[in-house]
């Protein structure tokens, strides 16, 4: 009897999921139709005027840090909240994982690859307005460095090199710096986080120091995301 009941329950679930799929098919078919015969005025404006208005070549960066910079602030707040939740959930204790001894090849490879990772992360952050990349991706690459140190050498070594208090300080500097750079727009008589309209001097398009505030905002977001993800990882691994 219970076996039939279970079978019926499974059938019920599958039927529900199939109904959901048919519903989604109708909705997505509308989107697919809408693709062909509608004009997107906002994107057209961004594509034709974006480079002149913001000075950044990479249009994704100019959307993220100029037109919709307020959303980026909210996104950075989500990462801050996640790091705070993990610090709350996990009590301060010694790590119990990773008692494994590696061979010398692993230690030497880690030692040699860390400088290249640092260079890659910093390049991705600084050239965010000229090439693919940007603050988020560069920050994640930078946060790989403490993770590699933790995995190969253990939590004690990693936390003696990069102290948790220091990481928290760096994350706070990133968050507060982003808001202060945004207030700079208010000081010059424009909106919060204004960049293109506030006339900070777009510079020559295509050079490293151009596009007004965008490179500095990229640096702030980069150090904030890197420190936040390193805190999240160390909190997860220190759970007893």
């Amino acid at each position: 009897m219970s076996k039939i009941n279970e079978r019926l329950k499974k059938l019920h679930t599958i039927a529900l999921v199939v109904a959901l799929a048919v519903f989604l098919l109708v909705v997505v078919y509308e989107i697919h139709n809408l693709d062909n015969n509608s004009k997107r005025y906002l994107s057209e404006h961004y594509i034709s005027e974006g480079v002149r208005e913001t000075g950044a070549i990479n249009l994704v960066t100019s959307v993220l840090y100029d037109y919709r910079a307020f959303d980026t602030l909210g996104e950075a707040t989500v990462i801050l909240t996640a790091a705070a939740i993990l610090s709350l959930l996990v009590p301060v204790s010694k790590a119990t994982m990773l008692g494994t001894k590696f061979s010398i090849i692993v230690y030497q490879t880690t030692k040699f690859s860390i400088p290249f990772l640092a260079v890659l992360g910093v390049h991705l952050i600084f050239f965010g307005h000229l090439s693919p990349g940007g603050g988020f991706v560069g920050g994640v690459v930078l946060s790989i460095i403490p993770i590699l140190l933790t995995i190969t050498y253990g939590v004690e070594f990693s936390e003696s090199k990069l102290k948790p208090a220091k990481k928290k300080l760096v994350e706070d500097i990133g968050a507060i710096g982003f808001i202060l750079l945004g207030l700079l727009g208010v000081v010059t008589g424009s909106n919060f986080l204004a960049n293109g309209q506030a006339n900070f001097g777009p510079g020559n398009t295509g050079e490293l120091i151009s596009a007004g505030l965008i490179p500095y905002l990229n640096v702030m977001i980069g150090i904030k995301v890197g420190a936040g993800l390193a805190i999240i990882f160390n909190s997860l691994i220190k759970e007893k």
Partner: protein
Amino acid sequence: MINLIFNLLMIFLVITAFFMVFTKDISNSVIALPVFGVILVVIFVILQAPDAAMAEAIIAAGLTTVFFVITINKTEY
């Protein structure tokens, strides 16, 4: 040619997702997760989205897998 590769990658994506859901061992499904992510990265590059591809490669194929492996280790499954 690029259309053929694109459709093949879509089929691989679905196969990897089904393997990830219906395999018995949790370790197998966690190791299939970065494969799923890497196929998605190639699809994003074909669809002309290099920023999203880079973020997906680092976050989904790198960090999330590490988080899952730590969780499996902690719960001793």
